[in-house]
């Protein structure tokens, strides 16, 4: 997977300094580095960099807050602009005076016609295209903009600050190592002018991407990143490497981080492990604190909707829908994420509770009882799985697969039996060649 390189480094890194150039060369040509398969930069010019700075100042000055069911004042202006200038919203109608009059959009709309979300007057020079394989089904192209891409850093900083951690950046050091553990993914070394010329690397721990598997620890130790980002699976693989580096924090996203897994990682890396809810369409949305996910950005309005698109009552679970205009090429009005949660409030801050990717799934217990996937997640709390998948067969029997976690199959079966009653339960590890799994699934029950 080698992306064609059409841009020069001058175009990728408009603000690259001499020190930044030296660090970039060092990372790209590191004798123990991986075979990076992509080149990319932050594409920030001076004025775009200032936009990200303004975004950060604004974010730290005014945390997200709104009264239940009452969209913040900036939503009105965004809706008005979208109804006038964005083809898909213009076509579907509604009024800026009432956000609930706007028909929700979703991943299918984005997959079918990403161009319909681009405002009529948006200049296309700074367009970025992300491909997502989509944990929710069909792959989509997300159109984005350099400011929306770099704005993820202030959002990480806000989540880190809540845990007393500061992401400093600066010349000559690596600020972020984005760690994957997949069959294949794009990998690169980059420089962030927003982080003062600090390096950012994305690596894949799959040994086939390295000259020598031992290089993985050597390279990351040499990078000594301030922050590690990844998912529970890549972190579990990382924890098994003989690393000496001491990151300030780990940010985990994209997969369910079980409490026992978090505790294991915190013990191993001796730093906070922060679970962040994030989508490719929106960037970071919320971070875990106590029993819920606190909303991070102050330019994103989060609703929880029922099937008909009506807002759910406080505390009632529904599909998370986002409204926000940070990404110039993909303004969102009630964009259904495919993820589910209940919306609550803590000290005025909106909080997502019982957050789960995908729609709820109800399994059938032995004596006719319903078992909700949320209950299964709760029952799995004591286990330090990096990844898991529960499937119910048509005959009602269960198949549980997991990766990571030092547990005996009998302990898992017993925890599941507590919930399901006397069902046949088969447990075992996820085969090494399987990379993507769906946490919860079931066949249609046999007639």
């Amino acid at each position, binding site marked *: 997977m080698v992306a064609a390189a059409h841009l020069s480094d001058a175009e990728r890194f408009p603000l690259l300094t001499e020190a930044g150039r030296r660090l970039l060369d060092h990372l790209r040509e590191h004798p123990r580095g991986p075979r990076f398969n992509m080149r*990319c930069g*932050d594409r920030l010019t001076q004025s775009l960099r200032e936009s990200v700075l303004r975004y950060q100042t604004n974010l730290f000055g005014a945390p997200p807050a709104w009264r239940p069911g009452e969209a913040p004042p900036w939503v009105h202006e965004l809706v008005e602009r979208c109804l006038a200038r964005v083809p898909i919203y213009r076509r579907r109608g509604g009024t800026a005076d009432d956000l609930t009059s706007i028909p929700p959009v979703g991943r299918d709309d984005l997959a079918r016609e990403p161009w319909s979300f681009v405002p009529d007057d948006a200049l*296309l020079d700074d367009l970025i*295209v*992300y491909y997502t394989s989509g944990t929710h089904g069909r792959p989509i192209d997300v*159109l984005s903009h350099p400011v929306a891409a770099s704005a993820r850093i202030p959002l990480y900083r806000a989540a880190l600050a809540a845990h007393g951690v500061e992401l400093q950046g600066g010349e000559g050091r690596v600020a972020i190592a984005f760690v994957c553990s997949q069959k294949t993914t794009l990998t690169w070394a980059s420089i962030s002018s927003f982080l003062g010329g600090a390096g950012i690397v994305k690596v894949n721990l799959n040994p086939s991407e390295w000259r020598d598997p031992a290089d993985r620890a050597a390279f990351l130790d040499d990078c000594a990143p301030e922050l590690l980002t990844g998912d529970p699976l890549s972190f579990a693989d990382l924890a098994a490497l003989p690393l000496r580096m001491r990151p300030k924090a780990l940010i985990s996203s994209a997969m369910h981080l079980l409490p026992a897994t978090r505790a294991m990682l915190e013990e191993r890396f001796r730093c906070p492990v922060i679970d962040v809810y994030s989508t490719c369409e929106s960037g970071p949305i919320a971070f875990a604190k106590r029993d819920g996910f606190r909303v991070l950005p102050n330019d994103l309005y989060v609703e929880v909707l029922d099937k008909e698109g009506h807002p759910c009552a406080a505390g009632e679970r529904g599909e998370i829908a986002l409204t926000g205009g940070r990404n110039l090429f993909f303004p969102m009005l009630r964009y259904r994420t495919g993820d589910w949660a209940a919306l609550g409030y803590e000290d005025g801050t909106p909080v997502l509770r019982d957050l789960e990717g995908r729609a709820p799934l109800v399994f059938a217990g032995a004596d006719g009882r319903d078992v909700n996937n949320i209950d299964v997640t709760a029952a799995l709390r004591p286990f330090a799985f990096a990844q898991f998948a529960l499937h119910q067969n048509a005959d009602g029997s269960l198949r549980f697969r997991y990766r990571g976690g030092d547990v005996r199959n009998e302990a898992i079966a017993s925890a599941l039996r507590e919930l399901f009653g006397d069902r046949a339960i088969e447990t075992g590890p996820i085969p090494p060649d399987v990379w993507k799994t769906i946490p919860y699934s079931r066949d249609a029950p046999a007639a």
Partner: protein
Amino acid sequence: MSEEGPAIEALTHRLAETPAEFLEKPRALGGRIDVQAVAGDLLFDLGGEVPADRLTPFGGREPRRSALVLIASWLLHDAWFLERKTFAAAAYDFLRSDALDEIVKSVDPRRFVSDPDRREELARLALRALGLRPAGESEPQAADRLATLDTVGRERILRDTRAAQQRVREIQEAMRKKAAEEAASVYGRE
């Protein structure tokens, strides 16, 4: 609510029989016909008296606009309108209207005499401007029928559609180009 006006067929028939002099070249463009005077006579016969200075715009040198004013004046000189003596103001506004400015941009004025659809469109536009609906039609029926004949609306839709399609092609092209280039980085799993 609009009032019931004359039958649409009576008006289209009248347009089909527009006398030759109403199709001649206006005086302002070197012909014989004084458009300003024709409009003034019409408005007087409809029960209004319009000061001369308000008629000067009808003496303009825009050939298609002048030709349409002549044809529309003939149409509105129908006995049905004249007898009521109440339509002068609305008729004046109609003859000066943006709707006529727009329609002559895409339709040769002679077609409002020769083409059955354009005859019907002009007759319906005139009735609507006078606050009337064709005899025997409900308001929604009249609006619906006019919409199907709506040259200006159709032109606008075509123009907008062409512009929208062009924009989609531009964005698709930019997506292809950017895909061939590269994406800026996302810094964590999403």
